[in-house]
């Protein structure tokens, strides 16, 4: 055994579900909590003005919202242990109002914490190796990854060791904590992009070159918000040993040359857009060449140390299909629907990936009560090695469930109101909190999601419609990813009223595209009608095997626009 293996072996009872802190990590996070406690005290005493305090509270995930403060907790690369999920539930009960909101960037938000309580909340999080570091602010944000990491059959390599490597590197970075604007990094190691890497400031795609060496395709300048852009390739194949140096080079170019005169033009996507990718690539390459790379001397031992925490759990050797599962499906149609919609293929025979939808019909997308969090923690321990994932679609994943156990799991979820069989369907809506909570919002988004969800409450109709990404943002900042929704909805203010602009044709995957505007804004009441008209038109026009986005791409935006115009003339209520 190597020294690295020994370090892991010293924790025989620790579930290998995710990275575990060593004494350095633990000291660092507890120092951050102590620092924040002092920052809060200094804010209360006036040593820090609100203007001075703001960047530091944001860098620790604390916002001031419409009704109260909001604390955004990081769930790095979306991986959680059962113990961590229980702690999130306990915090919701003790310091908040008994629930939390899972966000589109693998974070959890508490909507009602008091400023004076947040240091205690952070201490409680640190106790289970969690934090709120850099979940906001003009710094490198929580690094996200494919929520099927490590279990997807289409994967080259688990992206989480890379993401953890970057989490550590970016934590309180001396140089890059006061950037022109926020900076988001996402990593995927799979053939299908489930992490939306093309719409991040930096997207990393793990690739293999001709000689079988693992490296990264580095994409820069993607993003949503006021001006959406698809990222462009800045490094075709960056070997692992150069990754940190290459990223520092990009960040240094951005920190020095990114615009600071206008907050809406300060993201790296604008720098890339204004200078052109060739000029940016040249600048990054020049900086990379000038760097003293001995300071970044690749540390394969450290990477391996991190990777060891993500070793596969002790799977049993099982047949590829389960007779129990087959029988249960025949017997219980509701369960069969759940399996067909929410259960995905696992790379290990006899196992499955289960998506637990946080989108019950008429519910608040991404919200979970403390009781539900505890059910999920219990379920993961009974059926999935105590591991949970959070997806950017605001759902929870149980990544390793035996097919034989699926029925028992479903029964448990069903009893807790967590068995909605809509993963990827029209009611699996991504939505930001919108004006119900957020002080930046220009309109509400949750009630729109609820109304659409109720309109399509017939689950068999949803299955007939098939895959359809509806994404709703309550302002131009696009936290609800509306630009990349096959149907995107953006809430705006028009003449003192909430108004909704609809876009079609967005796609967050490797075939990324930004949605096109359908027409003038509509009222909240009209949104479900419009969506229904669009869906009906698609159903009428679709060819065998086409999802909504495929039909839209084939027949074109104009036809969809026309149908709405015609309906409008016929006196339909849109």
């Amino acid at each position: 055994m190597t020294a690295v293996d020994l370090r892991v072996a010293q924790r025989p009872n620790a579930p290998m579900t995710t990275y575990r802190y060593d004494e350095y990590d633990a000291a660092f996070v507890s120092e951050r909590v102590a620092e924040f406690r002092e920052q809060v005290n200094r804010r209360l005493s006036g040593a820090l003005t609100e203007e001075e305090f703001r960047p530091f509270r944001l860098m620790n995930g604390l916002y001031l919202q419409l009704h109260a403060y909001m604390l955004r907790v990081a769930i790095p690369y979306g991986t959680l242990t059962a113990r961590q999920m229980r702690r999130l539930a306990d915090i919701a009960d003790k310091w908040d109002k008994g629930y939390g909101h899972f966000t589109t960037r693998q974070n959890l938000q508490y909507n009602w914490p008091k400023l004076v309580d947040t240091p205690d909340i952070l201490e409680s999080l640190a106790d289970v190796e969690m934090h709120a570091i850099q979940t906001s602010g003009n710094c490198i944000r929580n690094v996200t990854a494919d929520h099927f990491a490590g279990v997807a059959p289409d994967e080259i390599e688990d992206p989480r060791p890379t993401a953890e490597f970057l989490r550590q590197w970016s934590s309180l970075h001396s140089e890059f904590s006061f950037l022109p604007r926020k900076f988001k990094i996402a990593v995927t190691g799979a053939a299908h992009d489930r992490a939306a890497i093309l719409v991040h400031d930096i997207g990393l795609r793990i690739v293999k070159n001709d000689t079988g060496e693992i490296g990264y395709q580095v994409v820069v300048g993607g993003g949503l918000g006021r001006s959406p852009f698809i990222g462009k390739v800045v490094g075709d194949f960056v070997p692992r040993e150069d990754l940190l140096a290459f990223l520092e080079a990009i960040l240094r170019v951005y920190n020095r040359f990114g615009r600071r005169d206008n907050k809406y033009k300060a993201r790296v996507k604008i720098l890339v857009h204004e200078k052109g990718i060739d000029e940016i690539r040249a600048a990054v390459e020049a900086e990379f060449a000038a760097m003293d790379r001995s300071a970044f001397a690749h540390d394969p031992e450290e990477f391996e140390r991190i990777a060891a925490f993500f070793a596969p759990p002790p799977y049993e050797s099982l047949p590829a299909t389960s007779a129990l599962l087959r029988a249960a499906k025949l017997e219980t149609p509701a369960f069969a629907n759940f399996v067909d919609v929410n259960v995905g293929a696992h790379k290990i025979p006899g196992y499955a990936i289960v998506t637990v939808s946080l989108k019950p019909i008429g519910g608040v997308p991404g919200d979970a009560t403390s009781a539900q969090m505890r059910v999920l923690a219990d379920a993961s321990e009974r059926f999935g090695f105590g591991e949970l994932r959070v997806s950017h679609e605001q759902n929870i994943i149980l990544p390793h469930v035996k097919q034989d156990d699926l029925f028992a799991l479903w029964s448990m979820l069903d009893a807790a109101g967590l068995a909605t069989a809509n993963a990827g369907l029209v009611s699996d809506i991504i939505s930001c909190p919108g004006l119900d909570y957020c002080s930046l919002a220009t309109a509400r988004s949750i009630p729109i999601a609820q109304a659409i969800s109720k309109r399509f409450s017939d689950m068999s109709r949803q299955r007939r419609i098939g895959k359809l990404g509806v994404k709703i943002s309550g302002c131009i900042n696009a936290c609800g990813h509306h630009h990349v929704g096959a149907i995107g909805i953006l809430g705006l203010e028009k003449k003192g009223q909430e108004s909704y602009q609809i876009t079609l044709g967005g796609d967050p995957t490797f075939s990324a595209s930004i949605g096109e505007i359908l027409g003038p804004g509509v009222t909240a009441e009209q949104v479900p009608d419009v969506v229904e008209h669009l869906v009906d038109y698609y159903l009428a026009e679709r060819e065998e095997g086409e999802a909504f986005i495929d039909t839209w791409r084939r027949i074109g935006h104009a036809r969809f626009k026309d149908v709405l115009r015609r309906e409008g003339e016929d006196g339909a209520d849109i």
Partner: protein
Amino acid sequence: MALISDGRFIEDAWRRLADEEALPKTGKFIVSLPRLEHAVEVLGPTATFGVIVPNTTEPSALIAALPRLDLISIAFPAFADGRGFSLARLLRRAEFKGELRASGRLVADQYPHAIGCGFDTIEIPDDLADRQDEEQWRAALNAYSMSYQRGYAGRGSILEARRKAVRS
């Protein structure tokens, strides 16, 4: 103005020269960037002087003068404008060995960042020093025992420490 060094408020041995002031024969003084070329030209090799530069300065503009400079002060137009951190890094990379000073409304919480990027001293306006006293600056300096980055100045790198632990 107040000057912070090693977590303490200290007397400033340097004097900022107004642009209309003649270059003195002795003492430590700081000129503005437009006057740098002239100062290098006319001042003898024993003169002790520095320069204050905007945070948008290209390091190449200072390279020729670096061996003559004992101090470079980088202006922070706003505390949240982090360009000065990168410029400091680049000047250290160019082997500037003199005093590197951050000048502006930096808050105490940025002290570890400044140290990490190679700054020695921080110069802040008096009203800020009144609110954020020496104790707060010292606390900020000692807030973290180590950092995750490598190749940055300061308290030592967690990565290096781990490597040592594995190898011992």
